[in-house]
């Protein structure tokens, strides 16, 4: 991970190679499934997306624990970006899952399927993460409350799966228990797809963190420049890195915003 942080381009290149390899395997190596035919290929996209989403939520919770333990704002940033990325991956998993369900079961949504339902509940819960975060103005409290949410929701993910899985299941394949029954060629393609999706997640996570850090640095430089020129600081330059795009009203900042966030 440390080397990936120093060489983001190498990580991006490895991700591109793995994604190309996994798509090649999906389309040219893995055999056509007997019942579903070509439609089954979406399995290699949908299942890794869903697994990475859930792992991202849990990892976001672990980073929240780390933030509350160390009070280091970088852990809050990492947790925020992990949850943000997982939400995007989760929406993609829901869409691909719906397409698969329509093709294979004839319905866009199937209620008697615990895996789908529990995934939707988790997405609904995490959809409140950003509204909660942005509704708190104080920077320090915002980070603390977001971490508490990340921990609670991260623990809720496995519990929710247990609760929903207790209800009788009818149609959804048990991926983690049934993947061992896959033919070797399908299993290999699935594992490569999972690795490629993990790399994609890590790469995007790294780049978003870098983008946010660059934005803080720019704000700090602007604030310093304004102070040096004796100008009144621009409204909004004190904004915290997650309080949204709107300019804040009120008195000019007393100190550069970026000093509050040790990046």
């Amino acid at each position, binding site marked *: 991970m440390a080397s990936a942080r120093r060489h983001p381009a190498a990580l991006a290149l490895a991700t591109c190679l793995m994604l190309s390899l996994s798509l090649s395997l999906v389309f040219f190596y893995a055999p056509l499934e007997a019942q579903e035919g070509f439609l089954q290929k979406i399995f290699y996209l949908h299942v890794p997306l869903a697994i990475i989403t859930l792992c991202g939520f849990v990892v976001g919770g672990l980073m929240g624990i780390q933030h509350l333990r160390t009070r280091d704002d970088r852990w809050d940033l990492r947790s925020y970006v992990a949850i943000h990325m997982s939400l995007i991956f989760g929406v993609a998993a829901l869409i691909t899952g719906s397409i698969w369900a329509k093709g294979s079961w004839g319905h866009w949504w199937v209620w008697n399927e615990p895996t789908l339902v529990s995934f939707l*509940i988790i997405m609904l819960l995490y959809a409140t993460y950003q509204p909660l975060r942005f509704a708190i103005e104080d920077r320090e409290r915002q980070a603390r409350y977001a971490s508490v949410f990340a921990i609670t929701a991260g623990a809720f993910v496995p519990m*929710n799966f247990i609760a929903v899985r207790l209800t009788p299941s009818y149609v959804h394949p048990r991926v983690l228990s049934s993947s061992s029954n896959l033919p070797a060629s399908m299993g290999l393609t699935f594992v490569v797809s999972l690795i490629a999706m993990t790399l994609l997640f890590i790469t995007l996570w790294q780049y978003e963190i870098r983008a946010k850090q660059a934005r803080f640095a720019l704000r700090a430089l602007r604030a310093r420049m304004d102070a040096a020129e004796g100008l009144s600081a621009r409204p909004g330059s004190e904004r915290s890195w997650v309080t949204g795009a709107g300019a804040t009203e009120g008195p000019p900042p007393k100190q550069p915003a970026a000093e509050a966030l040790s990046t």
Partner: protein
Amino acid sequence: MSARTSVPQRTQPHVLKATGQARPLAGARSELEPHAPTANPRVAPGFGGALRALLRKELLVELRTLESVPGMSLFAVSVFVVFHFALNRASIDGDLAAGVLLVTLLLASLLGINRLFVADAEQGGFDGFLLAPVNPTALLVAKALALIGYLLVLELVAVPAFALLLLGTSLWPALPGLIAVLALADLGVATAGTLVSTLAVRTRARDLLGPLLALPLLIPVVIGSSNAISPLLAVHPPALGAWLTGSAARWLVLLALYDLVFGLIVYAVFDFLLED
């Protein structure tokens, strides 16, 4: 002026929990104890004393203002009437009855959850609590117990009203099982509800965020309780023993597991919400 400036510097709560101390002043208390009686107001109360005082305050405020419980009960009865017209049914039983009862209780409990910390946030209750040398967990337990109390009163009104207005079968055979399920569900709603209420109360959009956060978190409670209750409200309900040894057992275990896990999570994170 922000509340933080008026609050004296405190040791981090997670450090306190690890060392077993309640607050910095708790150390001073042990020195004072041999010389001063516990009734002395200058001496910091222990956990039990703080809990009693906070719970008494909660119930007294509710008794004097009547802000939560009457509203919740009236809301539940109104929702039954709405369900009657929306479903266009004079009486219901089985799955449908369990669903209507639980959805109504859940929506009514959201009203209580939303109001749980409003007075503390608006009238300086948090500041007062932070200045007092007591364990923050006492506030969590007191609020959760108060919420359980509100839910019990709500159910004392809502369940008979449901039996009178909508239920197509007799309530009596179902009552012992219903009480057991609702008790476990109340514990889960109170624990998760206290956390949600604390999270939402000091945000800009608390009226919106409270229900948005609470509903997905409480879905396992709804799954467990509605599955456990629905055979009891059927036209031919099973005997209590058969119900317990049948499918209900795993739903009761699920509810108990939810209560336990959420209790531990909320206990672990609650202090971090009370730092300013």
